[in-house]
C-alpha cells in the first residue's frame, strides 16, 4: 500500500467573502453528475429519474428540485445535470439508481460552483452576465447557459437575490476575479 494519501482541495480553497452585505462563496459541498438520455429512451429515463429522485425530467432552461437535496437541470434535449450533496462516487451512485436508463459522467471536478447572494448580486452580475436576471425573465429555479468574461457559465436563480454560478474549474480563478471585480465596481 502507498505510504501516503491524496487530499482533495476545493478549486478556490473554499473562498468566502462579504462585500458590504453581499456574499460570494465557493460551494464545496456539491456533486455534479451529467445524465444523457439514450437514443429513444426518454420514457425509461423519466421513469428511472422519478423513482430515483422523485422528480419529473425538467424542460430546457428549467430545473426541478428532487429528493435528498438534489436538483436536476435540463441542459439540452437529451442531456441533464444532477447536482446534489457531496458524495464519494456521485456518478456511480447515479448509475446504480438509473439502472442503465441514462449515461452518467461525474462532472463534480469539471465545474467550480459559486454562490452569490445579497443586494449587490444583480448589479454586479449586470457587469458581466448578458442574461436578463430580472425575476420575470429568470424566475427562481430557472437557469441559463451563458458567457461571462469569455468564460462559459451557468447561472441559476435560487430566488430573491441569490444566484448559483458555475464555470469551468480550470479557469476558476479568472471566473472568481471577474465576479470580485464586478462586486468592487458596484459596491
Amino acid at each position, binding site marked *: *500500500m*502507498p*505510504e*501516503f*494519501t*491524496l*487530499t*482533495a*482541495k*476545493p*478549486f478556490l480553497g473554499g473562498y468566502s467573502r462579504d462585500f458590504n452585505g453581499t456574499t460570494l462563496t465557493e460551494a464545496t459541498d456539491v456533486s455534479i453528475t*451529467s445524465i*444523457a438520455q*439514450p*437514443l*429513444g429512451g426518454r420514457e425509461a429515463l423519466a421513469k428511472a429519474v422519478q423513482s430515483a429522485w422523485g422528480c419529473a425530467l425538467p424542460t430546457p432552461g428549467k430545473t426541478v428540485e428532487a429528493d435528498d437535496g438534489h436538483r436536476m437541470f435540463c441542459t439540452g434535449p*437529451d*442531456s441533464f445535470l444532477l447536482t446534489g450533496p457531496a458524495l464519494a*462516487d456521485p456518478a456511480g451512485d447515479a448509475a446504480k439508481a438509473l439502472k442503465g436508463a441514462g*449515461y452518467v*459522467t*461525474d*462532472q*463534480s*471536478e*469539471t*465545474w467550480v460552483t459559486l454562490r452569490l447572494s445579497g443586494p449587490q448580486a444583480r448589479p454586479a452580475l*449586470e*457587469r*458581466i*452576465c*448578458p*442574461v*436578463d436576471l*430580472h425575476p*420575470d*425573465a429568470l424566475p427562481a429555479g430557472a437557469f441559463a447557459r451563458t458567457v461571462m*468574461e*469569455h*468564460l462559459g457559465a451557468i447561472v441559476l436563480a435560487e430566488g430573491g437575490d441569490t444566484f448559483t454560478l458555475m464555470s*469551468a*474549474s*480550470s*479557469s476558476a*480563478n*479568472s*471566473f472568481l*476575479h*471577474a465576479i470580485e*471585480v*464586478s462586486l*468592487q*465596481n458596484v459596491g
Partner: protein
Amino acid sequence: MSQSNRIDGGLIDRSQTLSFTFNGKAMQGHPGDTLASALLANGQRLVGRSFKYHRPRGIFTAGSEEPNALVQLRKGAHQEPNTRATTVELFRGLEATSQNHRGSLNFDIMAANDLLAPWLSAGFYYKTFMWPKAFWEKVYEPFIRASAGLGALSKVEDPDTYDKGFLHCDLLVIGAGPAGLSAALAAGRSGARVILADEDFTPGGRLNAETLEVDGMAGSGWAAEAITELASMDNVRIMPRATVYGAYDHGIYGALERMTDHLANADGKPRQVLWRIYSKRALLTAGATERPIAFPMNDRPGVMLAGAVRAYANRFGVAPGKRVAVFTNNDDGWRTATDLAAKGVEITAVIDTRETDAQASIPRASIVMGGRVVDTAGRKGLTSITLANGQTIPTDCLAVSGGWSPNVHLTCHQRGRPGWREDIAAFVPSGDLPPGMSVAGAANGTLTLSAALNEGRAQANEAVKDLGFAASRKAPPKAEDEARETSAFWHVAEGKRRAWLDLQNDVTVKDVKQSHAEGFRSVEHLKRYTTLGMATDQGKTANIPALAIMAEQTGKTIPETGTTIFRPPYTPVPIGALAGRSRGKDFRPYRLTPSHKWAEENGATFVETGNWLRAQWFARPGEQGWRDSVDREVEMTRASVGICDVTTLGKIDIQGRDAAEFLNKIYANGFAKLPVGKVRYGLMLREDGICYDDGTTARLAENHFVMTTTTANAVLVFRRMEFARQCLWPNLDVHMISVTDGWAQYAVAGPNSRKLLAKIVDDFDISNDVFPFMGCAELTVCGGTPARLFRISFSGELAYEIAVPARYGRCDDPGADAGGRGIRRDPLWHRSAWRDADRKGPRGG
C-alpha cells in the same frame, strides 16, 4: 475673477460654491453648472483656438453638439483632451486648460496660419504636399502632425478603470426631454420595464432651458416631478449621464454612462460604463439641434446659438453677454430676446431675415426685419456687428438661430436615410427605422411642446400595447404649442469675408463652393475634401447649412443632395470604455492546471497554449538559460524518470450503444474493434483530407470511451463531434461531455516510471505482462483515490499517463513529492521530450 455674468434664477445650487481653474486662473461656479456655464459666468469668452487657422474661439452651444469649446481636463496621467466644456459637469477642484495653441491662449503664434488662409483652403494638403515626393515622410507628415490635432494625450497609461455591462428592458427611451419624460411616464405606469437614458446630468432636456410651462408649472419643475415619479417605480431605471450612442441589430443599443467624471475623486470605481442594452422596443426622443446661419466673420467668441444663449440664462443663471443681439430666420430665435429681456439683460437688436412682422416688442432693441449680419468685429471677443443696411450695432453676444434639425442620427444607424420636411426646413426620420424603434418629439420633427408631450405618450403607449401591456389611461401633461415658424435661410450672401460653416474644422462657405468647383460634389466627397463634419462633433451644427450651400451650387434640392451616412457613435466614446476591464492580464481568462501553484513555486516558465498556462521548463540555480534546464530534464527522463502535467489535453467522455461505431467514423483509422482496456492512437481528418486533430482514445467499457485531443483543438474537436452526432448521424446512440477540467493528468516517462508508479497504485499489478503497452484501467491510488492509468507514451519508452480527479491533483501539499523518494526524478519539459520522441513515434501537442 468674480462671477460677473451671473444673473438670477436657474437650476444651480447657489448655497454651495465650487472653485475650479481654467488655464491656472482660479474661478468659481455652483453645483448644476457645466464648465461652459461657469466659464461664461466668470466672463471667460475666449476658450480655445480653431483647428486650422488658430482663430480665437468661444463657447458656441450648450450641449453635446459643441464644435468650439474643447478643453483638456485634469492633469498628469488623468489628463483628458478634447472634452466639450458644454457637457462637463462642474466639480470642486476641476482643472481645465485650453488646447491647440503654441504660446498662451491669448497669444498663439500659430495664429499666423490665419494670415495664410487664402492658401489653406479646401484640398490644401492634397495640392501642397505633393512635391517633392521624398519630402512626404520626412518633412511634410511630421510637420502636419505637429500642427494638426486638438488636444494632447498624456502619453502615459490611463490610470482610470472602465467597465461594461448588459441591461434589458421592454422599452428604451432615448432622451429625457419633454417627449421622453412623457413617454417614460406612460410606459412606466403600464408596468413595462423601462430604461430612460439621457446624456445630461439633469434630465429634462429643453424644459430646463426654456421658460415654457407644463401642467401649470415651470417646465423644469415638471421635469423634476416626472423624474421623482419615475424613480418611485421599480420597473423604471433612470440613467442620467448616459448617452445612447448607437443602434445595433435586434434592438440592441450601445450606451456610455459617465459614472465618476463629475467627481473630483473616483474612489477606485470605474470612470465610465459601456452598456449593451437589449430592448424589445426603443423610442428615440433625442430632441433637435439648433443650427447656425453662415455670415461673414461669424466665428468670434460671443457668437452663439440662440437656444444656447437662452439655456445659459434660464438654466444656469448666466448672461453670456451684457448687450445681446439676436439674428434669426425663425420664430424660436425671438424667445432668446424675450427671455433675456425678461431677466433684465439688455437686448440691443433683433435681426430677422424674414420680411414679416416683429414677433415681439423688445424694449430699447432695434428690430430689423429682412435684415442680415454682414460683418463682425472683435479679435478675441465680439464687440460689434454690421448689418446689410450699413448699421453697426455694438454687442458682445450675438445669438444666432437658423432653425432646428431633429437628431435623426440613431434612426439612420442601420442604413436608414432621413426624409426632408419643407415646413420646418429639416431632415426628419423616414419610415425606414431600425426594427423596434419609433421616434417622438423634436427628434421626429415635432418641435412644439404640447405636441411633443402628446407624441411621446402616444408612441410609448403604442409600444407597450404591442408588448401586451395595458396602456395607462392617465391624461397627457398639458402645455401650449409655441410659435415655431421657420424659413430656409442658410447663409448671408453679402460681404466678402469668410463665413464659417464648420467651426471645428474651419470649413467656410467658400470651401464648399471650391469643393463644388473642383468636382467634389457628392456629400461624401465634400466631407472628405473639406473635412466638413469630421472630428468630435461630427458636424452636428454644421452639416445641414453646408448641404444647403452645396445644393445651391449644384442646383439640386437639399433632399436630392442628401446627407452623409450617420454612423455610431453619436458622441465620442473613449477607447478605454470600449476596452472596459480587458486590460493587461485581464485581457482574457487563464486556465490553470492543478499543478500550477507547485510549478510556480518550483521555478517553471509558462507558455500560453490557448487559455492554458503550461509549464515549459523548470530552471534550477546555476542554469544559464532555457537550454540548460531542458537538457537536464531530457537527460533525467532518459536516465530515470520525468513527470509532465498533461492536464491541458482535451478529454471527452463518450458513451452510448453506438459509441464505437461513431469513433470508427470520426477517426481515419479503425476503432470498432478496440478491445476494452486498450488505448489506440487516432487521427482525425478534415473533409479535404488534411489532418484536423490527433490523440488517443481509451475504451473503458463496452459502451464507454475517453478521448484525448490536442490542447488548442479541444473545443473545436468537441464541437465537430457534436455536429457529427446531431446532424450527420442522428440515428447513432452516442453522447459526449467534456471532462478536460475534471482530471489532473500526468505523464510519467522514463526507465524508472514503473518503479515510481508502483509506489502509488493500490494493489494493482502494473507489470508488463498484466498491464502491457497501450493498456488502460480504472483503479485507485494512494489508498482509495479513484484514478485512471494509461500505458501510453510520447517518447516510445516505458511511459504512462495517470489521472486523478482534479481536486486531488494539486501538488501544492508536501505529500505529492513523497511518491518519488529514492528515485531520481524531475519535472519534464514537454517540448524537448516530445521532440526527442518525434523520431520514435507519434506525438501530441
